[in-house]
């Protein structure tokens, strides 16, 4: 078992079972909503309303409200989808893979990262439906007996997507909920109002912390982690196959699965930082989410930056190495064509900017970290958009070349989805423990006996 490093462990020694439980539970149970939360809630609520208003308009008018066309028939919606699902990878990565690797420091960040995963994956799952021409038939992508005796077309990566994303959503939800049950019991037992006791009590399922329950719970938790680990790799691999099984230059690329997974972690960790830094500040959680946590995340960002840089390099390299004129033309267009500024922007954000994390001082500067997390998020979104859009706008037939210009509705749905995500996260902070209480108690226990 990897022991906690001193700079994570030291602050923990100040805490006892009771104080750590009370601190985290009271964020939910007794602490009144103060102005930053209320302001955030108001803004994101308005943004969410806009988001759903735009969706309603979209359903009334059709996807023609976006800037898509032939040849660029996929636009922001797909870029948003890939981006969000990528963000949704960090939670499970932290929870499952770091759990299997016995990285104890994950304990204080896994819960909210999992929540982030759920919300991001849920929003991601919306986009493929929103971008359908006839969204009311989205259930045709699922297998079920019907009077047409028709089935999904199993060779399509979009069907794989449906299975991968719904599996991922369900498994992430179970994983998150399984971890939440003991904490819900804590909230139930600590709540002072009857309504809260009933509400938390219902979801706690009568958890009472019996030793056999803990044993089965622990083993399930580990098994879920074991299942989620290949799952998390598979999901973004499958998402990348949406592109890679195409024959279009810029899509058709064997490097896509690992490159997409790396990109997913990259944006996911960036989003973890974007959320963690204000949260730890406003809720005074510096003892739990320590500078060491932030530093570790910064190292992950640095590593992922190099992984995606490798992806960018290989894409360009294979194009020239293949000698395929269409591939080469696509790369040249990427570097110098209509959308080239975006490509250079994403290189700046994703490759160049994270290099600052070679310096320890940068890794430990909270506000720089926060700024960098936004930069990486921007860069990763741009990367998705460039892949989706730029690859298509100049493909095989010059006669069919055309540009995609986003409309106000494209932007509304992107920004609206971000607002809705933040809205869900704010609700989560208000109603559920943002840090796993039972696991923190375990840590405190271990530290006591270390």
């Amino acid at each position, binding site marked *: 078992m990897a022991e906690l490093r001193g700079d994570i462990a030291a602050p923990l020694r100040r805490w006892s079972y009771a104080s750590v439980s009370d601190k985290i539970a009271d964020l939910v149970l007794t602490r009144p909503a103060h102005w930053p939360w209320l302001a955030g809630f108001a803004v994101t609520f308005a943004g969410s309303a806009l988001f759903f208003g735009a969706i309603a308009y979209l359903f009334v008018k059709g996807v023609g409200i976006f800037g898509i066309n032939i040849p660029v028939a996929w636009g922001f919606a797909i870029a948003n989808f890939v981006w969000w699902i990528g963000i949704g990878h960090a939670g499970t990565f932290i929870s499952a893979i770091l759990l299997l690797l016995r990285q104890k420091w994950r304990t204080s960040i896994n819960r909210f990262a999992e929540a982030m995963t759920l919300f991001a994956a849920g929003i991601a799952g919306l986009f493929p439906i929103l971008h359908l021409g006839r969204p009311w038939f989205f259930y045709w992508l699922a297998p079920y007996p019907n009077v047409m005796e028709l089935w999904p077309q199993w060779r399509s990566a979009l069907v794989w997507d449906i299975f991968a994303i719904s599996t991922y959503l369900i498994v992430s939800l179970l994983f998150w909920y399984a971890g939440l049950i003991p904490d819900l019991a804590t909230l139930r037992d600590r709540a002072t109002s009857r309504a809260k006791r009933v509400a938390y009590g219902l979801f706690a399922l009568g958890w009472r912390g019996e030793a056999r329950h803990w044993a*089965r719970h622990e083993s399930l938790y580990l098994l879920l982690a074991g299942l989620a680990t290949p799952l998390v790799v598979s999901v973004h691999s499958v998402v990348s196959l949406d592109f890679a099984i195409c024959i279009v230059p810029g899509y058709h690329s064997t490097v896509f699965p690992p490159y997409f997974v790396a990109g997913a972690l990259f944006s996911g960790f960036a989003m973890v930082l974007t959320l963690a830094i204000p949260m730890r500040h406003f809720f005074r959680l510096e003892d739990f989410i320590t500078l060491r946590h932030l530093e570790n995340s910064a190292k992950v960002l640095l590593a992922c930056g190099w992984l995606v840089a490798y992806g960018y390099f290989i894409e360009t390299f294979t194009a020239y190495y293949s000698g395929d004129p269409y591939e080469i033309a696509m790369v040249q267009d990427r570097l110098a064509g209509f959308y080239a500024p975006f490509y250079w922007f994403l290189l700046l954000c994703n490759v160049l900017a994270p290099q600052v994390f070679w310096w320890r001082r940068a890794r430990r500067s909270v506000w720089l970290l926060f700024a960098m997390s936004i930069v990486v998020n921007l860069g990763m979104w741009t990367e998705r958009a460039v892949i989706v859009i730029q690859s298509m706008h100049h493909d095989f037939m010059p006669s069919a070349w055309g540009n995609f210009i986003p409309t106000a509705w494209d932007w509304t749905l992107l920004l609206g989805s971000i607002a809705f995500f933040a809205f869900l996260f704010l609700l989560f902070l208000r109603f559920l423990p943002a840090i796993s209480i039972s696991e923190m108690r375990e840590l405190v226990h271990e530290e006591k006996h270390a």
Partner: protein
Amino acid sequence: MSAALYGVMAEFKHAEALLGAARAARAAGYERVEAYSPFPVEGLAQAVGFRRNWVPAIVFVAGLLGAIGGYFMQWYSAVVSYPINSGGKPAHSWPEFIPVTFELTVLAGAVVGFLGMLLLNGLPKLYHPVFNVPEFDLASRNRFFLCLRAAEPRRARQFLGALEPLGIWDVPQ
């Protein structure tokens, strides 16, 4: 009175005390011992007589069935039910059936495993006698409880008292 008693419960301050108490209770011949802790305590389950953990087996079988069922579903629909020429690929394009098979393996394993865990734990169980003890609220915070089921209350109280608990309570049914 004793017929309406669920058991006798003792409260401890430390995990180690609970572990020791559990072991002592089992050694003393108490068959039905329950230990409650705010976090999993290593060895406690074994100490109270937990033998076989079925959860991994459930997950494995469910995952296997998910895989077989998933592949069968694809094969049946694409080869038997309505074979359609899609892009010139054979009806049984097995390499392209792999992703869905994998996802269904994971899905079945996770869902059934979770439900199995609940089922084996007898959850949800919203009403439980141990909640009748007011101090038991601390079981999810910082205290450790040992409950001796349906034992002769006086003897049990005596036995528990010897373990230096913070308190001893009868757990009404």
